[in-house]
């Protein structure tokens, strides 16, 4: 036992072990995400949901997995074979890569000697946010390569659409992340998490509710979840970018999507909801470094993720899909201007040194919300919109008339 | 075929049987030949001769007369079946003929016929076991104003009531009006040797019964 702890004191060994544990946990979670997706959809529709495999249908993911494994893996004759094989792996790997930098449980003192031994994080590159943006940006390749490899015009159309959508929402997302970076002055995820704890520090969501909301919206878009699931689009594009996929390859896409959701949730939690932190609970403070505190922190973090996953599912089974033009309009005409305004405002606050002053930040947010309400309510442009009232902005009329 | 079909392909005439038309009958028939343009035309007189001689015209007789007249046996069958006068199976001493035309029917002819059948214990166109009586049914006995009519051999009974039937059949007076017998006749009325003498007819007449 001692020997084990001795070994684990080495950050590298700990990271490897942690990554294995997290990987296993994530994969299980992903499988059960599918189960809960079906359960929650059933409950919301007054149904029971899967209940045949095992008690309460809990073994359903195993059955699904077995099915994915055993089904005939068809590679159609006309596909681009190397890319066709590569794309699902790409989608899943890019989904999982993000887990490397999530801070699961802060500092840990493994042998209880009061000296912090390791960080409960697989890797802390210091510029974690950049890594995350980069990996997140790569995720679009899973979709676009998959769509291309299908060699099917519907799949390709879906992939192109999804690409355009992801690129569009990457911008407001990056701006929102920038806000947090500006407020904290940190790029490492653990640092950002810890900047929301302790005396006088609040979760960033308190300072930037609008930014948090925009982050949420972009997250839905980035993970291709309803109401932004343009990539799948069963109704109009057969099955979207994975039309020709079957069996395990299709399963990998499926897993990739849920992995993406989990990492995305973790990311939002770290940025805005204090990561593993809960206020007023002593062993969830950065000062608590025992192994038990670490486990508690990890559970809190996992619980927060679970709450987010529920939100994802809840939204999915409530909202219908955006039309593509509405979706683009929301990003470019809705989220982007608001983000830019927020960005400008935070810049000013930064100059004034008031970036953590709740009154200033919330006041700014309040004014912004008011502004949005006025613009949206009177001019009819922003979020939603019908084809008929597209030209309600004064400068648009001129363009259309031409 | 398990469902009921009458097999008409089954021969009813034994090819090796002794001819029923005697030389005398044949001779008489042949004597008609010069009178008619074709042999076929002799059919009716020939049938009369045979019935007079044998009392009835059985399948074998039909076949033999057909051969004699060089026509198809079916033509003989056709002709015989057309006329109620010709009997295709042995006839009793007394033939009880009941009228079934509409006037008699309306006046109770059917009840009379039933009474006759009950009394004799036989059906239409059948003969009692002792060869005494046969029942026949005719279209009209020309006594429409005094129906129901009943004929026993050649004696006409009018306004018959069903209750009168037993007495009427027992009436010895009927015997005076015997059937004319040909001088060629030399056989018994009923051929007791032939149990299967009852010739199956194709006719299956289900009498119209009161719908009530």
């Amino acid at each position: 036992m001692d020997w084990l702890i001795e070994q684990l004191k080495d950050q590298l060994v700990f990271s490897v072990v942690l990554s294995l544990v997290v990987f296993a946990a994530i994969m299980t979670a992903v499988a059960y995400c599918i189960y809960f997706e079906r359960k929650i959809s059933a409950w919301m529709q007054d149904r029971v949901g899967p209940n045949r495999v095992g008690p309460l249908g809990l073994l359903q993911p195993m059955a699904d997995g077995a099915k994915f494994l055993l089904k005939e893996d068809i590679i159609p004759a006309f596909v681009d074979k190397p890319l066709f094989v590569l794309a699902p792996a790409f989608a899943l790997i890019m989904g999982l890569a993000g887990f490397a930098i999530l801070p699961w449980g802060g500092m840990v003192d493994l042998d209880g000697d009061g000296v912090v031994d390791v960080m409960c994080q697989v890797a802390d590159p210091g510029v974690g946010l950049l890594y995350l943006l980069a990996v997140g940006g790569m995720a679009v390749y899973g979709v676009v390569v998959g769509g291309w490899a299908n060699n099917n015009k519907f799949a390709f159309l879906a992939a192109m659409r999804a690409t355009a959508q992801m690129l569009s929402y990457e911008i407001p997302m990056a701006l929102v992340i920038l806000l947090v970076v500006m407020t904290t002055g940190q790029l490492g995820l653990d640092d950002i998490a810890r900047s929301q704890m302790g005396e006088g520090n609040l979760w960033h969501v308190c300072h930037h509710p609008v930014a948090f909301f925009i982050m949420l919206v972009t997250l839905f878009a980035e993970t291709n979840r309803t109401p932004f699931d343009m990539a799948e689009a069963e109704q109009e594009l057969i099955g979207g970018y994975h039309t020709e996929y079957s069996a395990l390859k299709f399963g990998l896409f499926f897993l990739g999507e849920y992995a993406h959701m989990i990492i995305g949730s973790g990311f939002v939690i770290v940025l805005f909801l204090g990561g593993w932190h809960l206020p007023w609970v002593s062993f969830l403070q950065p000062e608590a470094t025992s192994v038990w505190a670490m486990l508690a922190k990890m559970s809190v973090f996992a619980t927060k993720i679970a709450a987010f996953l529920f939100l994802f599912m809840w939204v999915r089974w409530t909202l219908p899909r955006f039309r593509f033009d509405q979706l683009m309009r929301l990003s470019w005409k809705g989220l982007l201007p608001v983000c830019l305004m927020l960005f400008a405002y935070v810049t000013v606050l930064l100059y004034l040194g008031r970036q953590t002053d709740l009154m200033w930040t919330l006041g700014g947010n309040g004014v912004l919300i008011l502004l949005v309400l006025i613009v949206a309510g009177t001019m009819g442009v922003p979020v939603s919109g019908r084809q008929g009232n597209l030209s309600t902005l004064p400068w648009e009329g001129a363009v259309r008339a031409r | 075929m398990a469902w009921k079909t009458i097999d008409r392909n089954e021969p009813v005439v034994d090819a090796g049987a002794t001819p029923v038309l005697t030389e005398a009958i044949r001779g008489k028939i042949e004597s008609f030949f010069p009178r008619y343009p074709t042999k076929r035309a002799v059919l009716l007189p020939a049938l009369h001769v045979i019935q007079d001689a044998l009392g009835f015209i059985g399948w074998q007789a039909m076949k033999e007369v057909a051969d004699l007249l060089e026509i198809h046996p079916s033509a003989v069958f056709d002709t015989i079946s057309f006329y109620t006068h010709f009997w295709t199976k042995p006839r009793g001493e007394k033939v009880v003929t009941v009228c079934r035309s509409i006037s008699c029917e309306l006046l109770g002819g059917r009840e009379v016929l039933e009474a006759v059948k009950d009394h004799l214990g036989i059906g239409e166109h059948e003969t009692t076991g002792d060869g005494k009586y046969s029942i026949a049914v005719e279209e009209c006995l020309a006594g429409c104003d005094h129906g129901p009519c009943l004929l026993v051999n050649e004696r006409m009974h009018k306004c018959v009531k069903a209750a009168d039937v037993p007495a009427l059949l027992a009436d010895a007076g009927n015997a005076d009006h015997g059937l004319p017998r040909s001088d060629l006749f030399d056989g018994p009325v009923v051929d007791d040797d032939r149990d299967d003498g009852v010739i199956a007819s194709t006719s299956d007449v289900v009498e119209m019964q009161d719908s009530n």
Partner: protein
Amino acid sequence: MIEEKDIINVDEPELTAGERLYLPQIAGGMRTTLRHMFKKKITVQYPEQKRELRTENYRGVHRLNRDEQGRVACVACFMCQTACPAHCIHIVGAESPWEDREKYPVQFDIDELRCIYCGMCEEACPVDAIELTPEYDLVGRTREEMIFDKEKLLMVFDRTKETKPRKNPKITGYSGTGCADEHTVTERGEAH
């Protein structure tokens, strides 16, 4: 002919500020779905639970009726095959082995997978031999298994005759006068 004056143009209603912003509507929707999560579930746990059929005329699995002597009542008239819009009935008729009728089906197959359960066969049958039962739990492992042959269809009758008696048990065949019971062929009388 639709004339210009008959056409009424309906304008889409103007969106309110809340509707334009979408968010209140989203919140309303989310509330609805969340409420439903905790409502009583209406799922029927088939096959452990079975729903009471609301009608006796439910059109489920077919059956071939037996007559009072236990023989197949069908007379192989092909009316059902003719009426069937899905072409799922296949009959091979032959001479019947019974005295009271001429024709019977040596083979009578219904492809239950192809059937659309419209009931036209039942409607067309002149002897009420084919009927649709309220049995709806129809399962099989192969396509062949779902092609019900004569024996299987008769078994359905045996299974369901208690709950759904044959409409007109008097009809046993189709020959002669149309009422086969009274049909007899007698040989009597002479050539009259």
